């Protein structure tokens, strides 16, 4: 089963509508008999993050987006099926958060991953509950605090990507081979193993997600975020 973010002109930025739809599709996927779920983005990028335009009038409205983002991450991680992300180009901030909840993450040399959100006064804390298990505490620290963006190869070495195609052309082939392999395994054993790993690494622990979300949401109400977002828009960027 394939879920595709479909707003390529805006590099699949996560709007309210996009996230609501994603949540519906994830719920449907969870009920489907498919044993592997694939998540991808249409166009040149996987996902450029939450749609900052939502906060133009009042940055606090970004909190609603963050809440849906957190739900989407939990929903991906909680899916009974294994989840494979196909990441071409950017998976930035909210895009990287979605990615961190996937079991397998496939990228290419042009893949760009990271959380440059402190530049607009926001915190990527919401991503930590799934990111922590995915790449380990010391890498989470440098990724979030240095707020750098990693290229595909660096992300692969750090474990943020589990699979790496030598070129964009090979990415589809790689993802299809992986999904085929996974579909050949015992689906019941797979479900049980994923659920057990979720329990072991605490990545579906709601209390943890709520704390992380509250931390990110708190930054949307600061004077700092207002000023940095303002200057970001003055410069003409959405991000």
């Amino acid at each position, binding site marked *: 089963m394939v879920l595709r973010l479909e707003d390529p002109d805006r590099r699949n930025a996560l709007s309210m509508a996009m996230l609501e739809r994603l949540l519906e599709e994830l719920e449907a996927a969870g009920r489907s008999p498919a044993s592997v779920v694939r998540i991808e983005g249409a166009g040149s990028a996987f996902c450029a993050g939450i749609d900052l335009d939502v906060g133009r009038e009042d940055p606090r409205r970004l909190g609603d987006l963050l809440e849906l983002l957190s739900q989407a991450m939990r929903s991906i991680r909680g899916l009974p099926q294994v989840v494979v992300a196909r990441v071409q180009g950017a998976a930035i901030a909210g895009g990287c958060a979605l990615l961190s909840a996937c079991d*397998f993450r496939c990228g290419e040399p042009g893949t760009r991953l990271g959380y440059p959100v402190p530049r607009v006064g926001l915190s990527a804390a919401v991503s930590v509950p799934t990111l922590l298990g995915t790449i380990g505490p010391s890498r989470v620290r440098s990724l979030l605090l240095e707020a750098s963006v990693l290229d595909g190869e660096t992300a692969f070495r750090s474990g943020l990507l589990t699979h790496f195609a030598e070129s964009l052309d090979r990415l589809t082939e790689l993802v299809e081979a992986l999904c085929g392999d996974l579909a050949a395994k015992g689906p019941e054993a797979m479900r049980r193993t994923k659920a*057990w*790993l979720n329990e072991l690494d605490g990545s579906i622990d709601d209390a943890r997600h709520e704390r992380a979300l509250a931390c990110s949401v708190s930054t949307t109400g600061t004077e700092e975020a207002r000023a940095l977002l303002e200057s970001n828009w003055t410069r003409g960027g959405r991000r």
Partner: protein
Amino acid sequence: MSEPAGDRELVEVASSDGVTRVRLNRPEVRNAISRDLIERLMAVVEGIRADREVRVVVLEGSGRSFCAGMDLKQVMDDPVAMGDMLRELGRATIALRSIQVPTIARVQGAAIGGGCGLSGVCDFVVSHPEVKIGYPEIGLGICPAVVAPWLVLRIGAGNARSILLAGGTMDGERAHRFGLVDDLVPASELDSAVERLVERICSGGPEALRVTKRWLNELDGPRIAEQVMRGAELSAEVIRGQEAQERLRKVFAK
């Protein structure tokens, strides 16, 4: 019921100068883990725990492979025995981990499934590039739940996730990158690499090493034993299911 092993011990143990060597000894089945083998391994580990002279333990396998994993064929038709075996594997990993001195797994040839589980609870894994290592359980419809808590501790939850959910096996290079192998050397240098490590460990203060090992084990968390044993129950439940039974029968019919 004891299997006919003649005069041979299923797990041999030999100590000299503070180094205790524990050798899995069913080379004709690549040291597959039977109930008798686990029972004997547990007794050996108990002995080591009581021995204040031991300074380092080397776990190894006779013949061409370290350990091919659980001997499921032996208990194929008895789901109760299968569950018991998984519980015993869980207890064996807990016992091995609780040895109060550094432990080294000398892994040649293969360390598969439960075999990789045994090497993975050791403090050091020394192996070579051509080794076949990993957790193919998922392909057999089996849930590798017993080894999962240890694997998460050893290589982190993200790596454990991608290895266990993808199943299959990998070579030594890849295992080394993941941290399943700590020391990767040419096969011909396996023994000398283990010896070097033994010497290095023995040059440390025995008391400091015991205290450090105990502290590191404490950092495994207060729930680790409980998690491993719950993993055994989960795994036992899955292996009784239709999916696992069908897949296993297909494999053993070959």
